[in-house]
């Protein structure tokens, strides 16, 4: 539980002087995500830089150091009946706050309450010039200066080292009920969208290939009235079900093949692809396990539908993943113009390219 900002700043300073690139290390729970980690680079461990700096339940805000474990934050919030409303996947008990935000991942609640970046209010970072900078703050509304804090979300540590984050938190819902109904895929997609367009208190909606699952959250009376309108069967262990969906531990994800992630407009009809799909986020996030590993041919057709495709996880053979990532990026290729802008942004924050090279795109 201590502040290692100055020591970390010195490490970055040394790296700059010695022209060494750094690999930012949290708990390693999401090492599988993104581009290959170059093990020849100098590691920059952040996990000791931990501890909750400030938590004000009545202000709906928590500020914690990047190395603080997600579990610690969540149990502190739970004591006050509050939560991180983007329902972050952790992939490990040790997952850190910094890694969670740097990866920018959000769980099943995302379409209904918002994403990781939506809840970031402020940040303290070390940029590529070894300067400690503070952006945003602990207040809900703040439009002074560019929104650098939200830019850090999902940047995979390539723009700077996150030292500290302030996040908006929300009350836990009083009650949750999950319902399931059997239906064909396109009907499921349409139904999830139709329900989402009504004032029902929906907090998650997914489809596992045969059954549709809906979670309702809110005041007890509202949840019970809503579940009557939706119908279907009540799932006994609602918490475990959504935990498994969030952590990719649902039976669907048990594979040694590549797991691809499709992010699409929620109303996109089912895309016929060889392999199997699991639909989450009310239709907007689709997990895809393909029969074959190379899916680059899909990039343009997915983009045409307003979406993106990324390689999310390869649990089986490491050499297949290494070989894929040597020649490809894990994330959807950027247009020439966007890639140029990305390079300029990278340069603006990290002119010598010392932070996590290649982790977001090989060219950054």
């Amino acid at each position, binding site marked *: 539980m201590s502040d290692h900002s100055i020591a970390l700043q010195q490490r970055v300073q040394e790296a700059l002087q010695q022209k060494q690139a750094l690999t930012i290390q949290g708990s390693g729970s999401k090492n599988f995500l993104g581009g290959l980690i170059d093990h020849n680079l100098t590691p920059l461990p952040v996990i000791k830089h931990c501890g909750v700096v400030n938590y*004000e*339940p*009545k*202000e709906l*805000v928590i500020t914690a150091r990047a190395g603080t474990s997600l579990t610690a934050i969540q149990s502190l919030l739970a004591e006050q*009946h509050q939560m991180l409303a983007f329902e972050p996947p952790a992939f490990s008990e040790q997952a850190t706050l910094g890694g969670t935000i740097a990866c*920018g991942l959000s769980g099943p609640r995302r379409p209904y309450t*918002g*994403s990781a*970046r*939506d809840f970031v209010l402020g940040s303290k970072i070390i940029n590529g*010039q070894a300067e400690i900078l*503070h*952006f945003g*703050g*602990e*207040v*809900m*509304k*703040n*439009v*002074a*200066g*560019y*929104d*650098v804090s939200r*830019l850090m*979300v*999902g940047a995979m540590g390539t723009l700077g080292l996150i030292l500290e984050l302030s996040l908006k938190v*929300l*009350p836990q819902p009083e009650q949750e009920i999950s319902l399931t109904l059997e239906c064909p895929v396109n009907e499921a997609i*349409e139904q999830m*969208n139709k329900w*989402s*367009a009504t*004032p029902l*208190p929906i907090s998650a909606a997914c489809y596992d290939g045969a059954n549709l699952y809906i979670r309702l959250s809110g*005041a007890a*009376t*509202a949840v019970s*009235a809503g579940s009557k309108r939706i119908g279907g069967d009540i799932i006994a262990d609602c918490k475990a079900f959504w935990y498994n969906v969030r952590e990719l531990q649902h039976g669907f994800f048990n594979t040694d093949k590549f797991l691809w992630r499709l*992010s699409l*407009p*929620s*109303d996109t009809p089912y895309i016929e692809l060889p392999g199997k799909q699991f639909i989450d986020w009310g239709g907007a996030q689709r997990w895809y396990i393909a029969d074959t590993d190379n899916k680059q041919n899909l990039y343009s057709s997915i983009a045409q539908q*307003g*979406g*993106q495709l990324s390689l999310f996880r390869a649990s089986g053979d490491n050499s297949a993943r290494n070989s894929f990532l040597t020649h490809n990026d894990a*994330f959807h290729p*950027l247009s020439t*113009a*966007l890639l140029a*802008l*990305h390079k*300029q*942004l990278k340069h*603006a*924050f990290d002119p010598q390219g010392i932070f996590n090279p290649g982790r*977001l*795109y090989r060219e950054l």
Partner: protein
Amino acid sequence: MDARSSALALSERSALNAYDTGILMNKAELTIALKRFLPDCAVISEQEALRAYECDGLPAYRKMPLVAVLPQTVEQLQQVVQLCHQQAVPVVARGAATGLSGGALPLENGLLLGLSRFNKILNINPLARTARVQPGVRNLAISEAAAKYGLYYAPDPSSQIACTIGGNVAENSGGVHCLKYGLTVHNVLELKVITPQGELLTIGSAALDSAGYDILALMNGSEGMLGIVVEILVKLLPRPERAQVLLAAFDDVEKAADSVGEIIAAGIIPAGLEMMDALAIQAAEDFVHAGYPRDANAILLCEVDGTNEEVSEHSKKIYDLLLSCGATEVRTARDEAERLRFWQGRKSAFPAVGRMSPDYYCMDGTVPRKKLAQVLTRISQLSEHYQLPVANVFHAGDGNLHPLILYDANQPGELQRAEDFGAEILELSVQVGGTITGEHGVGHEKIHQMCVQFSEPELEQFRALKRAFDPHSLLNPGKAIPQPRSCSEYKLIGSCNHDTSGHQHREHE
């Protein structure tokens, strides 16, 4: 220079970049060049006609642009930006000019780019709950068009009848309902943007996330300095089944502020949570007769929305909570008419205060809610010090204060005192852990206070970010991010000696 020789001079160097030559176009040359691809009526260069563009919703600051243009197509817009890029002419974009920080204040050597003709709602997708709109569409018009599907666009700045969605993106506008439903940044999915080089770029997508850096988050609130937004895909939300407003009166502002924390601690996020102090209550009552208790020192308006059942449950809880927090009276709106009347008092607070004084100056700091009482006490001390009354209206749920400083610009020294008073309030907001601007933007107005909120390396990081998009500083230069010299000058002079270049009534929120 006459038109013919201008045109000649122009063609001679049309292939050259002004950054290399260092030769800038004059007004006549620029007008001719613009008329090559814009209809005559879309190019405004006469002084009288340009007067309409000299300021935005903060008319204390006025400047005449070199030329104003009102293009109608994205292609025309691109050509305008390309020409300006080539000729090093700075560009200031403008929506409905309701902004309160001088963000759309023109530049004397620059082009004013009016986006009012981009006023079409291109598409509403009721199933995906999105609307694709042009930047000149009014905020409220989106909700009106979506109403037939039971949907609406959530951010609702008080100027929503007039302000445009393009301007909302530039300022990351909030409103009364943003504690629960978020700011503009939370409700925009995709932007089509013209870069300072004149390229058309799509940022974000109709999906919930996109590959790469979150440039979409960066664009929201960037005050027209990173790109010109030409199309916006916004998220629509289902209209809540029911909304209910409670009005609570307090004999003490601090008790009112504390009760806000108690409501949130009870696990309820109200859709709106607004507070007014005694002077604001009097003003509103005199103006619209909302039925507010005149003897209260503070009132709290608390709106809950959602399903029928949820609203009933939460209203009951909040009612009891407010009484236990020391409210002298709590009323629940009996019907929709009373609910609207309760809100009307709050929504007309600014013009209501305007009736009490020849001029007023509206501030926009945000503070942690627990500091509210401390900040209010300090504001009332400052009010005595500067001998200027102040009415307080807040978005209490998110700590966003709108102190309205009353003054009379015709009394020598009063405007200066009002501005110094305002600057102290902003600096106080930073001191207690808040910000100089919650939703109105930095613009021209608060540029000095940026030096108080941010360190020089932080400001330099902002400048580097700006250069990544706009290396020649073509878009809205001089706004939002102060130059190093201006900060050192400001700190040298001290915070209480501000530039005064004019005065006006400030009417919008």
